């Protein structure tokens, strides 16, 4: 149980937090033939767009209602209307996801009401679903926006039904999962002969494929038709606590029971997931996963020398923070500093004594003295100043290649994670070795791990 501490600062220093509207926009980007539309001034869209482009290294379709000072005061009905018509004409997407922003929420624009009026007036919008997620910039952060968009899609698109398809499973994917993670989850579910409907599915739209034509909307991702089928699934598996409200709404609407996995990284979590799929499908666990499980066990044995008693500082979105903290704790490391950009119920269960709601300024202050810094690319400055090794996790990671393809879930993902982080620790060990002198040995007694080539108790 972690104590959650909320700071009293008036000034955020090096923000960790990103806004809710762009979180919602990213969720809409996980839909096929979709175009997210931010209802606000154009700068908000431009910033979000640049952020995603830098992280995913992809073109990002994102639009704005381009509110000016005057239209903000008058109300945004006309701008929303014009935007929808323009987008329909130019891109003809299957789905437009509207995310409100700080100014349009503070003004009190009734977007849901606008949409009714606009739909009545413009039959030409037929064939394009329009889903609205209310996401004021001044409430919550990125993952809250993501969750709201998914909830809004379930609310708007899933009809009530009593039909059940026993081999169909819903997967509600949190924003801490990479496209690579989602791919891994899909393959695992399919390996049991089950058909997953994944919402949202960034692995289809932002996995770096090369399209035949240049499209003004997403290509790949969850199809609107599939969302309509979600009510017929046997089970909903939500990954990340941020998806719980969406899963519960789906259950309330359709009676599909839900199971929330707070993480899919780590042996126990993966075991529970695989066992559930085996139960559901009444299938044997495929040999592939038995093998991967044993590889993970071996990785844990090999890796634990380097993780044991290391002090780690993490700053990340709530579900990612939760997952990473337990990953490190599982391997014997201590999370000495945990920072989240905004509050969330899952924070109380983070594997650390305290979790601070704060920024990278707080991170830098409280991470001093730890052995590893873990956060997104903006941690570069802190790592340079503190001289502590840095391992990047989360969005935005703009100074590394291949972040979309990184896999951190499942037996295989956990195994690779142990190797990746373990190597960072191991490198430090070797760096330290160079400074060992007879004198230093006298004064120091804490040697973190045996040398790599002498694995104690490996049974050779």
């Amino acid at each position: 149980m972690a104590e959650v501490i909320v700071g009293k600062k008036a000034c955020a220093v090096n923000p960790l937090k990103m806004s809710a509207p762009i979180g919602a926009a990213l969720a809409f980007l996980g839909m096929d033939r979709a175009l997210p539309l931010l209802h606000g001034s154009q700068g908000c869209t431009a910033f979000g767009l640049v952020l995603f482009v830098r992280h995913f290294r992809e073109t990002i379709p994102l639009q704005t209602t381009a509110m000016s000072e005057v239209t903000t005061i008058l109300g945004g009905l006309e701008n929303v209307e014009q935007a929808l018509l323009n987008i329909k004409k130019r891109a003809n997407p299957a789905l437009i996801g509207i995310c409100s922003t700080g100014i349009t929420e503070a003004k009190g624009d009734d977007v849901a009401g606008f949409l009714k009026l606009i739909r009545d007036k413009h039959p030409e919008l037929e064939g394009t679903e329009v889903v609205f997620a209310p996401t004021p910039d001044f409430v919550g952060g990125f993952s809250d926006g993501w969750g709201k968009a998914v909830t809004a899609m379930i609310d708007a698109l899933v009809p009530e039904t009593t039909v059940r398809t026993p081999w169909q499973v819903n997967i509600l994917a949190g924003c801490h999962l990479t496209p690579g993670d989602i791919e891994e989850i899909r393959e695992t579910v399919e390996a049991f002969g089950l058909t997953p409907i994944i919402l949202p599915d960034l692995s289809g739209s932002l996995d770096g494929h090369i399209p035949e034509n240049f499209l003004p909307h997403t290509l790949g991702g969850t199809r609107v038709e599939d969302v309509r089928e979600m009510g017929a699934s046997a089970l909903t598996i939500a990954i990340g606590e941020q998806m719980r409200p969406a899963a519960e709404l789906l259950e309330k609407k359709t009676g599909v029971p839900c199971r929330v996995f707070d993480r899919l990284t780590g042996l126990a979590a993966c075991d529970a997931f695989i066992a559930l799929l085996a139960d559901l499908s009444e299938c044997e666990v495929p040999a592939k996963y038995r093998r991967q499980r044993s590889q993970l066990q071996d990785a844990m044995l090999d890796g634990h020398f380097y993780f044991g008693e290391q002090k780690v500082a993490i700053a990340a979105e709530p579900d990612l923070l939760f997952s990473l903290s337990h990953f490190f704790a599982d391997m014997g490391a201590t999370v000495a500093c945990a920072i989240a950009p905004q509050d969330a119920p899952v924070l109380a269960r983070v594997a650390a004594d305290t979790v601070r709601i704060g920024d990278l300024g707080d991170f830098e202050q409280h991470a001093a003295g730890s052995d590893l810094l873990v956060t997104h690319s903006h941690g570069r400055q802190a790592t340079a100043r503190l001289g502590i090794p840095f391992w990047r996790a989360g969005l935005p990671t703009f100074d590394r290649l291949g972040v979309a393809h990184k896999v951190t879930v499942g037996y295989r993902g956990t195994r690779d994670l142990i190797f990746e982080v373990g190597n960072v620790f191991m490198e430090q060990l070797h760096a330290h070795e160079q400074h060992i002198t007879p004198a230093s040995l006298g004064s120091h007694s804490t040697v973190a791990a045996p040398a790599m080539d002498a694995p104690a108790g490996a049974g050779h």
Partner: protein
Amino acid sequence: MSALKQRIDSLLVEPGCATNQAKSDKARKEGCKKPLTPGAAAGGCAFDGAKIALQPVVDVAHLVHGPIACEGNSWDSRHVYSSGPQTYRTGFTTDMAEFDVIYGGEKRLYRAIKEIVDKVDPPAIFVYQTCLPAMIGDDIEGVCKAASERFGKPVIPVNAPGFAGSKNLGNKLGGEALLDHVVGTMEPDYTTDCDINLIGEYNVVGEFWQVKPLFDELGIRVLATFCGDARYKDIASSHRAKAAIMLCSQALINIARKMNERYDIPFFEGSFYGIADVSDCLRKISKLLVERGAPADLPARAEALIAREEARAWARLEHYKSRLAGKRVLLFTGGVKSWSVVSALQEVGMEIVGTSMRKSTQSDRAKVVEIMGTDAHMFDELPPREMYKMLKESKADVMLSGGRSQFVALKAKTPWVEINQERHHALAGYDGIVNLVAEIDKALYNPIWSQVKQPAPWEIEALEAKGAAHHG
């Protein structure tokens, strides 16, 4: 009419602006504000523009007053360099919450300023207004004034909320903040007859340092840059300069013009991109300085420097000429002036397939026509879909653009070189153009292109089968 509104209106009819000079009286009164098309707009907001212009002042704290969207989504994304202080790289924001929206954010802003004074103690704090606090009526001018008095240090309001207009307008609003509150408030330690200001030079990836040695060698002192690698004191005492060069098109024309009016600092418009342009700048500034009392031998010394540097640059470019001659380039630029890049690329024998004139002025257009002979290849907007089509059909061998359209080129399997704000290679000065050409060469001759364009074996088989079917 609000003060901000008045200010915007006056900027939109800026008499120094070439576009405005060409307009009729009536058209000029209407200003040049184009309403954006909802659902078909792209680009940054006025706040973004103001921040771009001012953030390169490296020793001050830049505090963004607003909800998390404005700073949280954008900080630490520009590669402007500092030769010393790093304060400008820290993202400060009030991160307004619901409470502040309901009760007003002024108290929070004041406390945020105090926290920065206590912890960082910079020579000044710039406070940026954004849409939400502007809408609920937070008086940042008032808060800044109070804080300034209370803490005994300049706290400068930058009133450029995003919804006021475009990035370009934001540049100018940022400039106005300097004119109102900073310029002329301090005195330089000493002055010389060769003190100049550079207006619109942001030191992107250290470009200012590529040209500074040239001025140094001539004994010309850059008193202040607006605002690349600038210190607060430089800007505050910049009114003692003898002359100024305005760079980067018209972004900060208001600073150049008003400093000319108020402090009698003559200026001309120049560019550090392209060999001829750099030389032109050095010639003009030397002449201007002599008129203002600098030693009479300055132009002659400048000529000697120009001759030496041009010869050196040409010698370095020689290597690329045979490799790049006849290669077709598509230019899609925002920040760097189109015509200066056009002339630079023509210097090595490249062919310009097209150039965008977005954000360019009438005189920019005229210059492109002058260089290229015709305006047939200019376009104002090129939607990504068409850009992609052009590239896919191999109408161009390489594309130069800002980062946002890079994937249009890459997905069309076309070499791409970055030339805007986010670029990692410095393009200014005599070395800059060599760097640009080297980058183009590096991109064009990378062996990946022939590989990625090769279809998969089974695709070839399928194509052949299809071909056979057609013929049979």
